[in-house]
Structures are given as C-alpha cells and as structure tokens.
C-alpha cells in the first residue's frame, strides 16, 4: 500500500451505476460468459481437437486434394477463428443494445 496509485474512479462511471441496476448487470455479465464459453469451446475443437488430437482419424477423410485433419491444422482452424470473432462482435453488439450498455 506504500506506493498506492492515486487513480480514482472517473465520475462519469457513477452515472452508469445509477442508470442500470446491479442485478441487470449480473445478467448481462452472465450472458457474456455464456457466449464466451460456447465460442471458446468451438475454438478448442477446431484447433486442438481437429488439428491435433484427432488429426489421424480425420486424415482418413479426404476433401479434394486435402486430408481433412491436415486441412484443419493448416487452413480450416484459421478460417474458423475468423468466423468466431465476427460472431462474437455481432452477438455482443446485440447484447449491449439489449441491456442498454452500448456506447452510442
């Protein structure tokens, strides 16, 4: 505590607290965490799952000139990451509006 940094909470933040009740904020946070859990589950499956753990099994399946496991490891996982981020962006923008915590 010796070097305690004197940076106080900005005054405008209090406004946020008064305008939205704590339970509503808890709900918003819970929905956010649910979204994260689903998206991170898919994140794990496409990369660590399809690209590493099950790569041998998936390599028995072919699409075009690719073995499927190899395709996931060097192409598919990256496309999936991209889709995940954009789903997150859309979903969170909707959630922000729904709970009236958006910035506009």
């Amino acid at each position, binding site marked *: *505590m010796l*070097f*305690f*940094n*004197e*940076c*106080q*909470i*900005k005054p*405008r*933040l209090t*406004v*946020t607290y008064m305008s*939205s009740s704590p339970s509503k*904020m808890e709900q*918003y*946070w819970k929905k*956010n965490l649910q979204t*994260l859990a689903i*998206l*991170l589950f898919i*994140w794990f499956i496409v*990369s*660590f799952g399809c*690209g*590493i*753990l099950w*790569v041998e099994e998936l*390599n028995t399946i072919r*699409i*075009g*000139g*690719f*073995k499927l496991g*190899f*395709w996931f*490891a*060097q*192409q598919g*996982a*990256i*496309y999936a*990451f*991209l889709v*995940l*981020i*954009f789903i*997150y*962006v859309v979903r*969170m*923008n909707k959630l*922000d509006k729904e709970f*009236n*915590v*958006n*910035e506009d």
Partner: protein
Amino acid sequence: MDLLAWTYLLVGLSFALYLGIAIWSRAGSTEEFYVAGGGVSPLANGLATAADWMSAASFMSMAGIISFSGYDGSVYLMGWTGGYVLLALLLAPYLRKFGKFTVPDFVGDRYYSNKARVVAVICALFISFTYVAGQMRGVGIVFSRYLELPIEWGVVIGMAIVFFYAVLGGMKGITYTQVAQYCVLIFAYMVPAIFISMQLTGNPIPQLGLGGDVAAEVPLLDKLDGVLGDLGFAEYTSGNKSIPDLFMITLALMVGTAGLPHVIVRFFTVPKVKDARLSAGYALAFIAILYTTAPAVAAFGMYNIIQSTSEKPIDQLPEWVQNWQQTKLIQIEDKNGDGLVQYLPDPATNELRIDKDIMVLAGPEIAQLPDWVVGLVAAGAMAAALSTAAGLLLVISTSVSRDLFKTFRPDISDKKELRIARLSAAGAVILAGYFGINPPGFVAEVVAFAFGLAASSFFPVILLGIFSTRVNKEGAIAGMLTGLVFTISYISYFKFVYPELNTAEHWWWGISPEGIGSLGMALNFLVCFGVSWLTPAPPSHVQQLIQDIRIPKGAGKASNH
C-alpha cells in the same frame, strides 16, 4: 532496368512513403504519442495490427519452416492466429474500456500496487527487447541480400528510418505507416504466390492450389508425401512431434500472442469498446490472408526445389538455383562424385542444403516473374521487419517514460514526459541496432522466450484481473513471478546450460522449451488463485473498477486519469 535498379527504386519509394506519412502524422501530445490520440478507426487499426504482428520471420521464414517440417509447422499457423480469438474475446474490449495507455498501467491499477506495475514493466521490456533485436537483424539481412550492401549498413539505414518515424510520430506516426506497410507486404507476398499456384496447379488461389493436382489426378500433397517418402523423409502431411508437445507449443503460442504488449497496446488506440472487438476481427482477417497462403507457398516451394534439383545433373540446374548458390542460401556439394544432386535426410550423404528463407525470397525467380517483382518482395520483407520493430520500440519507450518515470514522478508536465518518451525511443533504437549488428548467438532461441514469457507472466494476470473480483495484489505478484521464473529456468536449462540434453527424453512430460510457457501459465494461474485466497480481497474501489470495465458504456478516449 536491371534487377538491382528495380530493387533500389521500389525499396526507396516505400521508404519515401513511410517518411512522408511520419511527417504528416507527427505526434504533438503524450496522448498522441502513446495511443495515437485514441481516434484510429477499427479498419485502420486492424491493418496496423496485422503489420505490427507480422514480422520479418512471418514474411521470410515461416513458409520455409513449414516446408521442412510439414504438418508439424501447423503449430505456428494455429498458434499465431488462434491467439487473436483469445485477444478479441477475453482481453481487448475490457482493456479498451479500462482506458489507459499500457499493459503495466492496467496491472498496476487493477492490482493497486506499484510493485506489480514494476514486475509488469520488466516483463514488457524483456519481451520487447528480445523481439526487436531479431527485427533489426532482419532488416540488415534483406539489405545485404537484395541491395548488395553489408548487413551493418542495412541495420544502420533501418535504424535511421525507424528512428525518424517512431521518435517523431509516436503511436500516431507508427499507426499510419503500418497501414501502408501492410499494403506493401501483403501485395509482395501474394503476387509470387498466385503465379506459382497457377503454374503448378492451374488454380490462381494459393489456398485452393494447395489442395490441387500437380499432374493428372495426382494431388500436390500426395505427390509430396510420396516424393519425400521415397527419399527417406517423414511424410509431408504427418509430423515427427508428439501430440502432447504439439498441443503445448500451440497453446503457448496462442496465449503468448494474446499477452504480447505491442499487440495489446494497439487496441488502446480505437475510440470505443465496440471498435476494439471489431478491429481484432479485421486484424485476424488481414493476418489470415498471409497465414493461409504461407502453407501453400511452403508446399509449392518444397515441390519445386525437389523437382528441379533431386537426382539432376549439377551442371544443368535451373538458373535460379545457381543464382541463390552465390548467396549461400542454397549449397550443393557433390559428396559421392556422381555429378548428380542427392537430397537426403542423413546429413552425411545429403548434398543439398537450403536456407528456410529461400521459399519466399526465391519465389519470383522460380515463377519466372519479371525483375520488378523481386524488388517488390524486398520492399515487402523490409516493411514486415520495420513495422514490427517500430511497434516494439514504442512499447519500450512508453514503458520507460510512462510506467517508470511518470509513476515515480507523477508531477512532470506533459511536454517533459513527451521529451522523455522520445529520448527513450531514441535510446531503444540505438540499443536494438547494436543487437542487430552484433546479434547475440541465441536470437532464434529467444523467440521461444518472448512467447513463453508473455504466456506465463501477462496473460493469466490480465485475464484474472478482468474475470475475477477476488484475485488480489499478493496473488498477482506471486503468480507473475512464479510463471516468469519457472519459464525462464526451463528454457535456459535446455537452451543455454545443457543444450546437449535438449531432446524429448529429457523434457518434462515430453514438453519442449517452445511449449513450456503453457505449463508456466498454468502455474501462474494456480499460484495466483492460491495466494489470493489466503490474503484479503481487493479494496472496494478496485472491485468497482472491475465492475466498470465489464460494461462498454462510458468508454471515453484513453486518458491519464
């Protein structure tokens, strides 16, 4: 116009462009110097992040690493892109809402402790310095290969350019030069890739060409598996690394990416929380263009090199092989004296040695493209190295001027702080240049360090700082130090102290030093939780801060207070 003239022209033009942008966008305040005034659009920030992220190694070496390791190279592709999902979902929006300038800022405020801040500064400096030395070296190498100048000269010219726009422009100058640098580097990477893909597989899209056929009904990847197998190498599409090791390396690279301070700080420059999320998406999109092309360039390059050299008479090799032999990036030695080139896994009988950078650098010649494309690739490699170096230098100078100086001398004026920021940027450029000219023998090894340290020190502490209200100062400091000491010890032991023991049977649970950051991260989490539970909860104003960063409403521009 000959090749050298084209190269000078294109590299010169790109440099003039960067300097022009630097003069146009020079920083006038600390806010502009640290976070470009907080007014960068999500699209511009996405472009800048992509250039910031993709270094000389991504541009020149990654395709080659994949060429020689096949499936094992996937750890880099997944690791260096998957981190952006973590960044977008778990860190960027909240750090943007927090609304200050640096990662140590967040650690110091959230953990209400300047000790935690100082530990964070040390991590940030260490990570950034290890990284920047490699970039300066990269600039020097490009100069020496394409412009036929000594490496030292190349480093000095690179230093002068970075010095000019990083010191003058700060984050504002860097952001807009990085936007230009992304355009240069992606164009330079894609042009040869598209032409080679067309020639080999008839498909102009490299990502599809990788799955295309090289002969009637024979897919490229099957052909590669067969050819490499016949020569005694592992199959291209299956690797040598164990599954636990692949898993841990990928995880360490992903988490390390999300914890790198020069990447995180880019998300402080956009106006809103919403923009931070969106620009992480843009950044990954721009990165993915190169990262999905690289495995194609890798496979095309390997195929071309084997086809044009293996079992071919030494005096009838294609012209590009002869050209690159002069630079020693391709070395041929007829060990058995049969006049043919044998490419074999056994170093005692192998007659062909290829530097990994050749897959990208020789691309235009392999595809028989005009000379200006060669110049373009040189400018692209330079853009990749300079943009990353500038981003890192900014983190270094900010750490010194803001996290160290301003913390302990809070009363200095904005003008004076800006001067200190510029001075420390200048100092950092000179130090980085010194390391570029006299590289420590372990430049390649320290990359494992940078990612391992980012993964084991920053990531858990930032993540818990947002998602737990219970984790406190004692837990954070203990966690960071545990992760840091553990990871440094493990890597040093195998890389520097006993390099001869650096094999799978000596590693703990088969985890290589590249992947140990994952274990360091897990330890950090455990210690952080454990110590926090045994010590008092954070004070109420910190609890309130956490509640506040969790909701987007009310994010002003990044500010001092």
